[in-house]
């Protein structure tokens, strides 16, 4: 319609989460109509981001500095590492503002189906960090799925002998959750993980 360049732009936009071919076409048209205020700044921002943002060699977070802002922040509690599957999990915890320690991004979870084995995850780096003597606790914040918990058990095994306390997030009733609407699995896990008040 608008030449191969526009077709390529639409095809690339359509690969973004939340966009299909039609919405990608609309987004492309919107960008082209707002060249000065949107297309050119966006192009520049994408270029700068592609050049500057890299995975942190320590924790696996994405940032423009090495080590990342979290790893280099002096106020952080360096005795606790929270292990997450993906960067978006790290960002979710940071948004909540409830954790003041360091992170470690595994880069996924063990999955027989997708062929993800221990060597594909950042487990060796975690073991090295946990063994350096400064770390006292490793919190496993993997997803409450079969793959996530299988990964958590595997990481726990690998951390044996590192001299750190290993804990994991609790399972149970979410804030605002009504028991009537919860699935049996969540209810069962919540009942099992009950604690004295």
């Amino acid at each position, binding site marked *: 319609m608008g030449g191969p360049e526009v077709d390529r732009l639409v095809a690339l936009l359509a690969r973004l*989460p*939340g966009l299909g071919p039609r919405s990608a076409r609309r987004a492309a048209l919107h960008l082209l109509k707002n060249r000065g205020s949107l297309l050119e700044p966006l192009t520049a921002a994408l270029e700068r981001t592609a050049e500057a943002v890299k995975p942190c060699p320590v924790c696996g977070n994405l940032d423009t500095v090495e080590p990342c802002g979290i790893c280099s922040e002096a106020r952080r509690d360096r005795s606790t590492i929270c292990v997450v599957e993906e960067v978006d999990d790290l960002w979710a915890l940071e948004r909540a503002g409830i954790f003041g320690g360091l992170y470690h991004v595994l880069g996924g979870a*063990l999955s*027989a*189906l*997708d*062929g993800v*084995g221990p060597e594909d995850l950042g487990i060796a780096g975690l073991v090295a960090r946990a063994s350096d003597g400064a770390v006292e606790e490793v919190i496993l914040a993997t997803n*409450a*799925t*079969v*793959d996530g*918990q*299988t990964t958590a*058990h*595997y990481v*726990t*095994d690998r951390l044996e002998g590192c001299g750190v306390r290993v804990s994991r997030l609790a*399972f149970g009733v979410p804030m605002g959750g009504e028991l009537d609407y919860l*699935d*049996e*699995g*969540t209810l*069962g*896990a919540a009942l*099992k993980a009950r604690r004295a008040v």
Partner: protein
Amino acid sequence: MEWSDRGIVLSARRHGESAAVVNMLTREHGRHAGLARGGAGRRLKGVLQAGNLVAARWRGRLSEHLGGYTMELERAVPAAFLHDANRLACLACACAVAERSLPERHPYPLLFDGFLALLDGLEGGSDHWDAVYVRWEVGLLDVLGFGLDLGACAVTGRNDDLIYVSPRTGRAVSASAGEPYRDRLLALPGFLIGKDIGGASDILAGLRLTGHFLERHLFAGERAGPPPARERFVARLGR
């Protein structure tokens, strides 16, 4: 085409943004794949955990189409033992073995019932869930045409003192007949021939036995070797 059946979720692979291609072991329709719309979304993701028991409805225009699944959770099985590393490893192993070895759309009702028994055991119904799993693998070999013959000694025909299995034929061998070849024979754990479970070593011997024949008959070829989930499960029990 449309049918309803009970199914055990073996795997769910994300497809596109919100859907998932689900592989299920059903009682009357065997291992059957289908597209679950919204399967990668918040509402269905929990339902599509491996090992969950669901009431599934499959619908497709033609029987050979991938078709679509709608489903309702019957039992969230893995939630009962997410904290137990061994049981979770066993479940992941069973799902991976079923997914790799079973042909699609061929019903094996007994194998499905065996899987249900395994899920019951894993949920806490049996202390010997690991033995249940080994028996399930023996059953898997059997229904796929590679059954072990553990009833009598391949050499003497007697059914007492059976402690070996021939790695070539899958037939039991008695202690006396197998003695000269003991290094080359596989150990036959007693619980597979009606005796009591002799502990963790018996379970590992059972897994070695079934593992040998699974690798030989079902995991050979292009993607050689057992699923990594099985290797991890065996390694975990062996520690």
